[in-house]
């Protein structure tokens, strides 16, 4: 390959100007004639039978046009003839805030007034909010009516979740919707052979994706009968399928227009679109629903809380001998949780000759659980990276050296038996080891700081994708694709296509089209867009290039091999002055009677091997001993990215992931009272990290090229959000001697632990 012209350079986001000057149109900014604003009437109880909905008072409010309940929605039966899933409560509400009715009005304010006037008649039922209660013998059911639990979405994020764990099913406790079991070797023998064993129990709370733009969708029935849905979705084609199934129309009668997404992080695959579409069909007018922040906390799809007990043993020379764990993951009232991937990663970063993991997904009366950036990975990683750290201490080993000694490399097995492909965990550990922040850890300690490190890995996702690359009449190239640009991927694709043509990224337009016209691409999630759509773009651009060269060859009467594309013109190598411009090629191939075919390149990819990405983070913290407040004062994030096509956007992804990791570690958690009322339903009570809570973030990009990604690139979105909680917990341990196992490590928790430790010290001193 000659020296790259467009790839590998820090490239400004091509779509940034409209984001900066207010011209970007998000879904809620759209206006359609006759638009109705929707607001939901959410269940007041975490569990109740809904006996009736009284609409009259609401309908009397000026501006209110309709109050829709489950019975008013046109819900199609499933393929097997059973009733379809209704997005509104039919009779049993299973979490607080679950949509029971939808008020439609000519203004948002009138719709909100309408919600206040709708009366719902309930028969309350016991709510089960804790996993231990729900699993207890003889516990009542979280929902009286059961339905199939689907993990369809989980498989879109990582290749491992797409497989069944293939295990026997044991007899499960009540309200357990799924279980997993991974086993290898002889765990008892492994522990018997060990010199040190660490066993700890961890809890993490339910955490919200915290996208700044709440869930929003608008649907309209077009004059010719098609249903069009404008929505902030990460996954347009999946959304189309779900909408079409819900209202019972063929796929080709639904067009999903993926709008700019104001933050998704896994939480915006599909949620309110079937409801909004069904409402638009029911009333024959366009309907816009945007959750307010409270509704989003109550009725969206946050990441589940969990409890993990983990035991790991090793011999004196630092060889790990065994791992044993029991994990329970909340799966909300509707089921589904990233338990399996949590287990695979927890038992997958190091070589465990003997291993036994049992896990349970437990229903509780909480909202649906969803994907949040590397779903399952944070929770599993907190456990393993805390225990590994503690075990290194027990053995008197350096935590970096202990990790390097045991870390997995290509060919080592994950808990499910699948071997890791080429990975860069070792190289990433080494990169961080060489960094001044690690080398200078004693100086940091001397300043009263703690230093912690942690690993985080993500298996990566795969899904077939297609892209097209066409030459337009103005001589410009346009790439059209179906993947949603969450984080600058379209700029990355401009770079990839530009590289093929020897142009600058700004010379290539990349458009995400709606499902009517876009070539297929899977959802933007699981760190797979650059990895899987990138090769399709590359091939489409190459195809277009060949078509251009063959037209030029005929036109210039030269052999195609003798041609080169320079600055938007095709020239005969070594013959100055003989050239034809892209614009001329465009007009030669798109005019009446022309003998040349229009330039329309197509490229597809169906990569089946994912490219796992690893990150290793270092956190340096200070703790206020009085208040228990932890401040992260320095942060270094090393990550194997394969190859950074746009280093600026790769670093940006890492920065954002780090801040979310700090949120997991110290601030974020959703809390319910025992009756199932959410106590953290505003951004006042739910703390998203602010500018002052996050330190400057140093990044180290490691390049262990993937086999199939464009120029060796790997997915980079998930890994940076994974190690944060464990790195911070390990830093707190380093500083205070306290092993904090429950996240978030809020000041009151740490202050209480510091107090208890102090009391114990004084007591033992008095002895």
């Amino acid at each position, binding site marked *: 390959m000659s020296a790259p012209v467009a790839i590998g350079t820090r490239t400004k986001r091509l779509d*940034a100007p409209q984001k900066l000057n207010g011209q970007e149109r998000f879904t809620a900014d759209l206006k359609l004639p006759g638009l109705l604003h929707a607001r939901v009437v959410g269940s007041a109880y975490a569990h109740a039978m809904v006996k009736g909905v009284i609409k009259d008072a609401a309908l009397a409010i000026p501006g209110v046009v309709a109050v829709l309940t489950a019975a008013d929605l046109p819900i199609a039966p499933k393929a097997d003839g059973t009733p379809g899933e209704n997005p509104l409560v039919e009779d049993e509400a299973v979490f607080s805030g679950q949509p029971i009715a939808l008020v439609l009005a000519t203004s948002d304010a009138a719709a909100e007034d309408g919600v206040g006037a709708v009366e719902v008649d309930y028969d309350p039922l016991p709510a089960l909010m804790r996993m231990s209660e729900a699993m207890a013998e003889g516990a009542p059911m979280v929902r009286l009516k059961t339905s199939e639990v689907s993990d369809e979405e989980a498989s879109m994020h990582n290749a491992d979740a797409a497989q069944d764990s293939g295990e026997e099913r044991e007899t499960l406790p009540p309200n357990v919707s799924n279980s997993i079991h991974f086993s290898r070797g002889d765990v008892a023998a492994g522990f018997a052979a060990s010199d040190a064993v660490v066993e700890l129990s961890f809890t993490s709370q339910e955490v919200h994706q915290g996208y700044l733009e709440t869930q929003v969708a608008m649907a309209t029935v077009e004059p010719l009968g098609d249903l069009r849905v404008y929505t902030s979705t990460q996954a347009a084609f999946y959304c189309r399928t779900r909408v079409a199934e819900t209202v019972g129309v063929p796929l080709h009668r639904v067009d999903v227009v993926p709008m700019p997404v104001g933050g998704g992080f896994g939480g915006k695959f599909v949620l309110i679109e079937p409801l909004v579409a069904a409402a638009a069909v029911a009333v024959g007018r366009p309907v816009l629903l945007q959750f307010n922040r409270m509704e989003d906390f109550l009725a969206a799809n946050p990441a589940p809380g969990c409890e993990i007990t983990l035991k790991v043993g090793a011999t004196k020379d630092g060889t790990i001998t065994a791992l044993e764990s029991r994990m329970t993951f909340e799966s909300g009232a509707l089921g589904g949780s990233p338990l399996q991937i949590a287990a695979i990663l927890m038992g997958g970063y190091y070589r465990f000759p003997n291993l036994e993991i049992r896990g349970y997904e437990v229903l509780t009366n909480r909202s649906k659980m969803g994907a949040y950036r590397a779903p399952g990975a944070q929770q599993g990683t907190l456990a393993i990276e805390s225990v590994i750290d503690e075990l290194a201490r027990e053995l008197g080993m350096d935590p970096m050296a202990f990790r390097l000694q045991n870390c997995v490399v290509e060919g080592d097995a994950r808990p499910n038996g699948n071997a890791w492909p080429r990975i860069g965990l070792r190289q990433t550990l080494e990169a961080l080891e060489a960094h001044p922040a690690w080398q200078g850890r004693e100086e940091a300690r001397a300043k009263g700081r703690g230093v912690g490190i942690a690993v985080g890995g993500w298996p990566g996702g795969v899904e077939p994708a297609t892209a097209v690359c066409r030459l337009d009449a103005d001589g410009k190239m346009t790439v059209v694709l179906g993947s949603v640009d969450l984080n600058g991927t379209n700029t990355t694709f401009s770079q990839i296509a530009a590289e093929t043509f020897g142009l600058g990224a700004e010379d290539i337009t990349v458009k995400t089209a709606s499902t009517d016209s876009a070539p297929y691409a899977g959802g933007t999630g699981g760190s797979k867009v650059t990895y899987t759509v990138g090769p399709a773009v590359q091939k489409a651009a190459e195809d277009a290039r060949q078509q251009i060269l063959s037209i030029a060859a005929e036109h210039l009467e030269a052999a195609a091999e003798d041609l080169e594309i320079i600055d938007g013109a095709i020239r005969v190598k070594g013959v100055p002055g003989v050239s034809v411009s892209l614009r001329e090629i465009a007009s030669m191939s798109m005019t009446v009677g022309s003998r040349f075919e229009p330039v329309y390149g197509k490229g597809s990819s169906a990569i089946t091997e994912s490219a796992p990405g690893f990150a290793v983070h270092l956190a340096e913290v200070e703790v206020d001993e009085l208040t228990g407040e932890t401040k992260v004062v320095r942060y270094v994030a090393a990550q194997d990215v394969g190859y950074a096509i746009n280093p600026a956007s790769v670093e940006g992804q890492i920065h954002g992931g780090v801040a979310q990791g700090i949120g997991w570690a110290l601030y974020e958690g959703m809390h319910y009272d025992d009756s199932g009322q959410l106590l953290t339903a505003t951004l006042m009570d739910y703390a998203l990290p602010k500018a002052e809570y996050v330190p400057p973030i140093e990044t180290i990009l490691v390049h262990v090229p993937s086999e199939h990604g464009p120029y060796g690139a790997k997915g980079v979105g998930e890994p940076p959000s994974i190690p944060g909680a464990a790195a911070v917990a390990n830093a707190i341990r380093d500083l205070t001697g306290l092993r904090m196992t429950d996240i978030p490590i809020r000041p009151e928790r740490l202050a209480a632990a510091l107090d208890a430790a102090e009391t114990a010290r004084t007591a033992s001193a008095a002895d």
Partner: protein
Amino acid sequence: MTVDVPVNGTSRREEIEPRMLLVHFLREQIGLTGTHIGCQTGQCGACTVLIDGEAVKSCMVLAAQAEGHEVTTIEGLAPAGTLHPVQQAFWEEHGAQCGYCTPAMVLSTVALLADDPDPDEHAIRHALDGNICRCTGYHNIVLSVRAAAQKVAAGAVPEPFLQR
């Protein structure tokens, strides 16, 4: 009721419900949708506009209260087709990802630089504490504000950008 709010240098006389918030006035009544809503309870800062040059959360103000005060939204920061030096700096330093917090971040930066033309890291983070960003981890936003300060100090003016 009738209100008359000067927005981006033009007086906007509108018939509204008295309870209408300034953010809804801007978005719904006069169609300036660059002002975003992330919470409506004063925490996220996505609705920040300038009122008489001060950064204010427009979900915390009634439209009627803005009467007689100069309101500047992101649409009014620079002439159409150009980017203000602060916007340029955010572009160059990769200070925007999803873009939802971005107009508000830009306006908060403009207000900060008017008060403190050369803010250090601490001052920047402090000044932006009312503006949540979930995408950037604030790192590149801080760099953007620093770069903006330099541009403004050097007398930079709005520059045209290539409309795509």
